[in-house]
Each structure stands twice: as C-alpha cells, then as structure tokens.
C-alpha cells in the first residue's frame, strides 16, 4: 500500500490518459508552467554572462547555435505559446466564463463545463504551439 489514505499520488495526478483532453491540458499547463519557470531562472543566469564581457557572452550564446540549442529553444517556444493561450482559457474558465449554465441534467449526463468552447481552446493552444515551434525551427535551422 502506498499510504493509509490510499491517495493516488503524483502518478495519478500526472496520468493524462483517463479523463479526456481537459486532463491533458491540465498536465501540459503544469509542465509548461514549471518549464517556463526553469527557463526563466536559467535565462537570468545566462544573461548574467554579460558580466564576463563580450567573450563570455558570445561563448555562452554559441550554445544556442547548436542543434541541441535549437531544439531546446523550440521547446521553450512551444511551452510559451501553449501556456499563454491555454492560460487565457483557464483564466476565463476560472472566472466562470464559458463553463455552461446550470440546468436539470439528463442521461447520459454530459457535463456542460466540458464543452466544445473549452475543447476548441485547448486544441487551438496545442496547434498554435506546434505551428510556432515549426516556424521557430525553420528560422533557426534555415540560418
């Protein structure tokens, strides 16, 4: 037994397979939020290389010119776009916008809050993130 409370734990929390695209969006939002936070910290560190003068700065910048650097930056672009677009959707939802109106439910009880407006929001966030990543990769590798 994992614990007395039988809590599902992080594995259950992060499992995106059981509860539709909304749970996938939940996971991606968390991962991209934490990813952006990590990037933000790393970014401060990276730009502080300017203190080492032009040589140090250029040295570090070269990291981003490698294949690995390009892929890393493409992932950052993807996280940024997904997190922002989905973030707007989540903020609207948190404010009660587009979550449906209370009504006497009927079998099979499709929940009104899990509606097409929010699904479109999630899919748009994913598609826009993919397009931005591809554009970024095209620019970076096209140099």
């Amino acid at each position, binding site marked *: 037994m994992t614990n007395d409370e039988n809590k599902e734990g992080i594995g259950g929390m992060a499992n995106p397979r059981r509860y539709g695209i909304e749970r996938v969006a939940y996971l991606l939002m968390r991962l991209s939020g934490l990813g952006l936070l990590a990037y933000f910290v790393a970014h401060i560190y990276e730009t502080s290389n300017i203190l080492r003068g032009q040589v140090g700065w250029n040295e570090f910048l070269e990291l981003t010119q490698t294949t690995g650097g390009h892929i890393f930056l493409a992932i950052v672009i993807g996280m940024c776009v997904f997190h922002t677009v989905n973030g707007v959707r989540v903020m609207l939802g948190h404010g009660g916008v587009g979550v*449906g109106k209370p009504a006497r439910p009927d079998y099979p009880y499709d929940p009104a809050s899990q509606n097409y407006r929010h699904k479109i929001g999630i899919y748009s966030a994913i598609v826009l993130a993919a397009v931005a990543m591809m554009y970024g990769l095209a620019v970076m590798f096209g140099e």
Partner: protein
Amino acid sequence: MALVSHIAEEQVSTPVSSSKSITLKIFRYNPEHDDSSKFMEFTVPYEKWTTVLEAILEVKKHFDHSVAVRYSCRQATCGSCGMMINGKPRLACFTKISELDSNVVTVEPMNNFPIIRDLAVKFERLFDTHQKIKPYLIRDDTELETDEREFLQTPEEVEQYIQFANCIKCGLCNSACPTMATDSSFVGPQALAQAYRYVADSRDKGKDSRLKIIDESHGIWRCHFAGSCSQVCPKGVDPAMGIQLLRGYLLGFRS
C-alpha cells in the same frame, strides 16, 4: 396447444445461463492483517444487462463470501458502491459489464479514500468536508414563522441549483480529482459543488459565510479546472462548473 409449444420452444432456445463470461479481478486487502494487497480472479458469466455490482455479488454468493463491498440501493441513488472499475471511479451498480468493452474487469477501492477492507472505503473525510460548507439553508427566519408556510421559488430559481442537489455523496469526483491525488487537506469537488448548490439557492442567505469557508489555502483555489470530477459524476452534477461559478463570486465577476 400449438401456441404453448411455440413458447416452450422459444424458452429452450433462450439460454438460461449466459455463454459469455469475463474475468473479474477483485482487489483484496485488509489493512489490519495484510502486509500488501493482492488480486483474486474469478470467471463470472454475464448478460448484456449485468452490472459490475451483480458480478461481485455473484462472486460473493458462489466463490468467496468474504469479499468486502458496500452497496445498498443498486440504482445509483445511495452513493455507496463507488470503486475503481478498470482504472476509473464509477458506481458498480450503474456500470454494465457490457459497456466496459473488455474481457477483464478489474475492481479496486476508490482512490483518495482510506481503505477499510477490499472494496470498502472510509467516507468520514467526505462527510466532514460536506458538512464544513454548511449544507443547509442559512437564514434568520424559518418557514414556520412566515404566513406562506414555505419559501416559494420560481421554476427559474429552482433551475439555478437543482442540478447540484442531485449529488448522492458517492465521492467519485473526489477520487478522480488530480488535486485530491496529492493534497490530503483539499476540501474537494464534492463539497465545493455543494457550496455552490446552497449559494445559488434563492432561499439561502449564507453566501458570505460559505464563501469565507472555501476561501482558504486548501479551499477553492486548489482547483485547476481539470474537469475530471464532472466527467465521472454519475448524476450529472458537474462540480467543475459549480466551482468555477463559485470562484466567479470570489473574483468579483458575479455578485
């Protein structure tokens, strides 16, 4: 006579015992005696209409009476029989084996609830959080004092909360919730949906005190609108909607 034999023939051609069967895997664990949990497998016949609860009761009747399972109404009304069925929280009495589309049906105790034994879990915390949000009408007068003897509501006013009054306290929503999976103190979708149920009731005057109860660090703000609660609710309560509408009040989008 011809008619009678026709009926007799038809009865013969209708199989009495089903030819279809599934493997039912039942989670077994007694926290008082066992070091670890295990699964026991049973082959159970089923018909198109056989529910998972009926299959479990079949096992209890013919193979092993010691399987612990809680149930009462068998019709999705008492909220007793929630369990993980093939990995998702569902009511055993409201889930047909045929709809699961699988030759193996695995039943486990609901996640995020302490195990009493096998499939039976403790509901104390759910009842505590439910009680915490004051699940009753709050107002100074009583129906007996007014001349009408009852507080009248228009059908539109009823429509505002009746969906949330469908809750049978089965706990499936709390079991599906990703926040509940890691946070033992979270008030949970069940209680939050009930907070909305009373806040949205035109007869209730306890909105401010209820909003205060849920506006705490392990309260409503731990909801990330993943919506899993609403997807598993067997009564169409849609806790995720209620929670976001409730948060609308706290954020000042609604009054």
